[in-house]
């Protein structure tokens, strides 16, 4: 481990924030405070935080329908997120986008994307901007094992190679695309094999542990920032919950659900760091309590906030200027 104590604190804080935030989303959803449907990131925290750990606000990510974790890992404000998820006027997107479309361009977050396989082509374009403007920054395209079967993703992989742009494709293989397993839906065995078929380096990484994800991402960044072209990671992880909040998951056995929890990245991180005596119990507890407070405040604020006004907000922001 080459991380400083501050960096370790930041990593834990981000992962724990995702955890608490998503559990709270489930709770508020059940309480009827969140309209529509929402997909939570529980169990995959190490992926987002490991991938985004070294990224700056000037690096871009494109996300998925399960995007809260990516947002938080990229530094997006959780209060703005909770406001948005509850459809409030002061949400990050003015209540126009909701859970599946949270974006924060100032943080380099190009948007959660409710179309599976939607983000990779867009990330290629964001990377093209970095190449032409010679910024030294990169774009990261998140997609899942489900997205790995979309034609748009193959097009993006190929285009990235042809245009030689600084983009990193991250496939979060959480074993399920909606209700169906990756083993059923994937021709061939490994996503990584497909990616390598485009001539792109692709590492397979254990996504239930923060440290190997971060290290793989460091290699990916070195490669892309060194103008060596695109890079990919297949990050294997566990989806603790259903496809969406409220999914009864009749397709998963009780046993499988319990076993998935054994791969929880958060206690694993805490254990490893504690054993190495890098952070104390008190320090962990302090982080956790601060995170709890932040999420509490975000929820209280979001519950109290005003909804958008149909008279002014419904037709606003379709265009920069129309006619």
């Amino acid at each position, binding site marked *: 481990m080459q991380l400083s104590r501050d960096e370790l604190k930041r990593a834990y804080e981000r992962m724990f924030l995702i955890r608490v935030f998503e559990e709270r989303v489930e709770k508020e959803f059940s309480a009827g405070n969140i309209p529509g449907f929402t997909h939570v990131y529980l169990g995959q925290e190490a992926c987002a935080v490991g991938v985004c750990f070294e990224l700056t606000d000037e690096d871009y990510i494109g996300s998925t329908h399960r995007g809260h974790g990516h947002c938080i890992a990229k530094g997006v404000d959780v209060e703005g997120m909770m406001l948005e998820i509850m459809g409030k006027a002061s949400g990050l997107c003015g209540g*126009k986008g909701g859970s599946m479309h949270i974006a924060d361009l100032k943080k380099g977050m190009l948007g959660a994307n409710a179309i599976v396989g*939607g983000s990779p082509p867009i990330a290629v374009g964001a990377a093209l*901007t970095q190449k032409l403007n010679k910024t030294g920054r990169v774009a990261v395209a998140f997609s899942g094992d489900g997205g790995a079967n979309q034609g748009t993703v193959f097009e993006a992989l190929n*285009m990235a190679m042809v*245009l030689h742009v600084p983009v990193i494709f991250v496939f979060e293989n959480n074993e399920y695309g909606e209700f169906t397993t990756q083993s059923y839906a994937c021709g061939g065995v490994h996503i990584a094999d497909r990616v390598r078929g485009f001539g792109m380096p692709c590492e397979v990484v254990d996504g239930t542990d923060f440290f190997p994800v971060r290290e793989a991402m460091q290699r990916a960044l070195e490669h892309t920032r060194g103008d060596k072209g695109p890079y990919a990671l297949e990050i294997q992880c566990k989806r603790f919950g259903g496809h969406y909040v409220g999914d009864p998951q009749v397709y998963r056995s009780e046993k499988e659900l319990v076993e998935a929890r054994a791969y929880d990245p958060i206690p694993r991180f805490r254990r490893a760091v504690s054993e190495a005596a890098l952070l104390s119990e008190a320090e962990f507890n302090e982080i956790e309590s601060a995170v709890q407070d932040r999420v509490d405040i975000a929820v209280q604020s979001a519950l109290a906030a005003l909804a958008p006004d149909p008279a002014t907000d419904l037709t606003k922001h379709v265009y920069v200027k129309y006619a």
Partner: protein
Amino acid sequence: MSKKTYLQAINEALRQEMRRDSKVILIGEDLVGGHGATGEVGGAGGPFGQMRGLYKEFGADRMIDTPISESAIIGAAAGAALTGLRPVAELMFVDFVGVCFDQIFNQVAKFRYMFGGNARTPLVIRATIGAGKRAAAQHSQTLHPLFTMVPGLKVAMPSNPYDAKGLLIQAIRDDDPVIYLESKSLFGMECEVPDEPYRIPFGEANILREGKDLTIVALGAMVPRAERAAAELAKDGISVEVLDPRTTSPLDEESILESVKKTGRLVVVDESPPRCSLAADIAGMVADKGFKFLKAPIKQVTCPHTPVPFAPILEDAYLPSPTQIEMAARSILD
């Protein structure tokens, strides 16, 4: 000022905007052509020649040749636009929109709204449209209604070289995504086009001919046909106003209604199958907002509800003809 073809007008607009703003890039299939081959790279300037000479001036960084991969073209252009470039993407034929429509209507068109006004997507998607080239069902369509119905997109359909240049420059400088549809059958059309860059604002109809008895609204390649019909009708003393909306989104409803108020009669000509066409859209708008001006029913002249056929005799019958337009007009005149 000199005479230029529609094709030259497009080329000049691209060249002048690329010179003016280094953020403007072109991306698509075979804009350059010949990469990796044994002959000249960039000699063709695209299958129709819109990009002739641009590769030599702007090089591979700004003239980006892609694989045949429309989703990635539009998606990459969208991502580039979101992050500060002003890409002009090309779908060689609008028919290819089928393989990348998600990127257009779910991504590009919605970023600004979904993100609560916090995004700009200054992207132009150029595509060629139109039947009459014996190119059959998958290379001949005129799909402007498909784009027009999507909130967040703007749609321009130039009907002459002057408009082709002015609308394309406006499209490139516009901060919203614009679908710019080039009528293949007009590529050789010639008229006076200023040498300087100029912009035609979107949503401003062009009145090509003033009249008082009847209004013909026509779009794209149908405009010259409407003008021919109007000239025929004039021989019988029928005074026809010909109006080209230039953009279908935004649509200059005000000018259309003003014209119908003056003439009381409306024929709408649209190179499109009849259902959910722009003809139907404009007819509906006038029935809704200008019914009191009408002295006769509105007539729509469209293609039949069929794919575009190949055999020349069938394709000629498919397209609205000046005679059909003239007959439609006569049918609502006393």
